[in-house]
């Protein structure tokens, strides 16, 4: 489908939208908490893909993961009312399952939630504040009253725990 997209085939956009719009919208909605704004991000993400399909490098990751990360980044930009900070071409996402099928995605999402749920609450909170609220480590430290070093370690180990969960 990406090949068709590169060839200018508009129907490929519809197919990709049908496959991935739910995850893009869900990420945007999680970050923004506003359906209208999430819809705008959804529109922008797919339009960007249409305008510049070469930005996605299939050799460096899967489309589902890439779109999810782009959606998250754009939603954070939107949240912070800033211009996009990252070019599409610069977003390279290694590994991660593609999860093109909704059933697979649901299972993986359940697994991630389970892993996150098993984390100590301060660690889970630090990870989610960074990823879904777009807070910097110093902002998280300010909010939680924890030392910067602790926040750094919590975020890193949180990501490592997720990685390990999908390596086994």
């Amino acid at each position: 489908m990406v090949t068709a997209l590169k060839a200018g085939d508009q129907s490929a956009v519809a197919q990709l939208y049908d496959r991935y719009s739910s995850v893009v919208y869900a990420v945007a909605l999680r970050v923004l908490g506003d359906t209208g704004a999430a819809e705008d991000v959804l529109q922008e993400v797919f339009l960007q893909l249409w305008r510049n399909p070469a930005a996605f490098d299939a050799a460096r990751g899967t489309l589902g993961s890439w779109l999810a990360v782009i959606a998250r980044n754009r939603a954070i930009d939107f949240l912070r009312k800033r211009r996009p900070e990252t070019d599409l071409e610069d977003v390279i996402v290694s590994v991660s399952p593609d999860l093109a099928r909704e059933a697979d995605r649901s299972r993986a999402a359940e697994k991630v939630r389970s892993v996150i749920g098993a984390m100590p609450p301060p660690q889970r909170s630090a990870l989610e504040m960074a990823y879904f609220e777009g807070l910097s480590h110093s902002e998280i430290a300010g909010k939680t009253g924890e030392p910067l070093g602790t926040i750094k370690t919590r975020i890193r180990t949180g990501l490592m725990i997720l990685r390990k969960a999908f390596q086994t």
Partner: protein
Amino acid sequence: MSAHEQFADDLALYAVDALTGEDRAAMETHLAGCSACRLELEQLRGDGALLALSTLGPKPPQRARQRLLDAVAKEPRVPVKLVETKSRRSWWGILGWAATAAVVVFAASLWKENAALKQTLASANAQATESARELEDIRRIAAPIIEPEAQVVTVVALKAQPQPGGKAFYLRKRGSLVFLATNMPPLPPNKAYELWLIPMQGAPMAAGIFKPDAHGRGTVINPPLPPGAEAKTFAITVENEAGASTPTMPIVMMGAGE
């Protein structure tokens, strides 16, 4: 090869855009020269993607789909043709004249430099911002020659027939080369034009293969060339599609430095 442990925490923060200020600048400086950490960064972004993929929520409203498709319909894209050179991308296949081509060379060099910057050189945040601004300026300026919709007109003396020709723009210190050809005669089946860098000393160096399009236009953008090779001139031969390691006579076109 593994990522540097002393950067591990900051790298994770960087992957989720939670690293700011001087720490971020220092990380970018380190990343520019450390492929192991760049690789780990991709992994960490993949880990973060799991978080993104874990989100579940309501499906987007039906109107969003139609809204997108309407927007796409308003932006029809010319299909990207496969490059008819071995070396690069098709949207460069539009020929400009010397001035605009010079912009292309500069842009290509900057892009190349930008990529190299990421891989090998450290740069402060201010420099990165400035580079991005310059790149944006160049993209804007070069738009008339890189947009597929651009109209291309070759202007020749009245009553004169357009002649085959080409311009090679070569930056020796970077090994960057852009070659733009016009009015090239059609080729026999299974043949291609091959560009050669003729050095001041030594054997000719293969500098890219191209096949002209229906209008006789062809391009070669940044073929693999060693930096610093001094070019006496450039030449073109007709070779098999796969290219040759040495030029096959006769030389069909030959140039000289300007």
